């Protein structure tokens, strides 16, 4: 399983290098506050990386906020413990 993952990763890296080499010409972006010129390959890679990071961050934030909420509820319940008889 791990070997398969490494092979797929290598294929994607190779594809990235090839695509980067084939699309080396610059393309201009107007970001309203700045104008940047990037190679086409880098733009593609940047889009993939930004999308991936945003997706991962969203999932992580969802899980951690739920855990924090449960923890807070538990702490409140602990404080409400009745006195020892």
């Amino acid at each position: 399983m791990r070997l398969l993952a490494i092979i797929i990763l290598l294929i994607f890296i190779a594809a990235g290098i090839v695509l980067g080499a084939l699309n080396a010409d610059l393309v201009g972006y107007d970001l309203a506050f700045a104008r940047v010129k990037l190679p086409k390959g880098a733009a593609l890679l940047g889009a993939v990386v930004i999308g991936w990071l945003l997706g991962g961050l969203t999932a992580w934030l969802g899980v951690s906020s739920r855990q924090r909420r449960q923890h807070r509820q538990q702490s409140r319940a602990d404080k409400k413990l009745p006195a020892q008889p």
Partner: protein
Amino acid sequence: MNLMYVLALLVPVAFVLGWWASRQVGARRSGAEVSELSSDYFRGLNYLLNEEQDKAIEVFLKLAEYNRDTVETHLALGNLFRRRGEVDRAIRLHQHLVSRPGLSDAMKTVALLELGEDYMRAGLLDRAEALFSDLVAMDAHAPSALRHLIAIYQHERDWHKAIEHARRLEVMTGEDEAPMIAQFYCELADRSRQHGARAEARDYLHQAFECQPDCVRAFMLTGRLQSEDGHHVEAVTAYEAAVAADIAFTPEILPPLLNSYAHSQQMERAEGFLRSMLERYHGVSPVLALTHLYRQRDGERAAIDFLTTQLRLRPSVRGLMALIDATMDKIEGEARENFLILRDLTKKLLEGQAMYRCSRCGFGAKAHHWQCPSCKSWSTIRPIHGVASE
């Protein structure tokens, strides 16, 4: 322009992939936690099985810290604390469980039941009673709660409430609780007898017989009541019925029965009954009773002959002691000294012996109890049969 479309498509696709990958990693990590919990759980279980409760508590405490939602772990911990006698900790833990928000009703009632047991162990019977009564009212774990309530009422000697709850338990579970209820009526009858309310005592005995027609204790109490009222013939009938109901209680029944025979001057009937007992009962009590009877009627020689014959058939230390006592007057000199030593020895041997044993829990006792002091079950303490005892 084409590139912009590709980029616009790539960002959401990568977003979804990143979101999915993050969830996968999270799931794998929590899986690792679960397996860690499982290994801890089994380690704790192993300690429990090895009777190493200190270590088990340590492991379960750690487990409870990891996963505060694991109600079962908390329940196991509470049980352990209670068993070790740390009732205050068990109570706090179970109270904490009960007050936990979001706990399912089923789990809450289990925790309440455990808390009630903690209170019982701590001797806070009023609190335990209130809890168990609530559980019965909620119809949650009602049979267990009813059993605990019956135990509480037995402890408080509130026999009326014990009877009421035992009847409810009988209806709820379909199990036959009649022998236990008969014992409760016998307790009431005995109490009335001691307070001089003889008609009330008879009424309770009547109810005991309705529950269990062959209740030995009820027959014995009837015999005692009749004997105290001077109706010795009726007392004899009741005591004989007690022997017929359960022959194992012969050592308890014979002394008052012989007394009633003597008072009603029915020594022929006594001999016939004891003779028939010799065939049915293998203990030494009827032999000793017959020896006493023959000594009074036919003289010392006949008694010793009978005892010697019987001791060959059923060797017994109590029988040997009776033989030594009977022959002591006829012996003099060095032999007498030896007999005295032998008598002291047998006396000491009998002093250290438990004469009764609970057939349910094995509790040994020197005196007879209708309720076992250890396991609290009724009518299970019986005479031990053997050379050194009955």
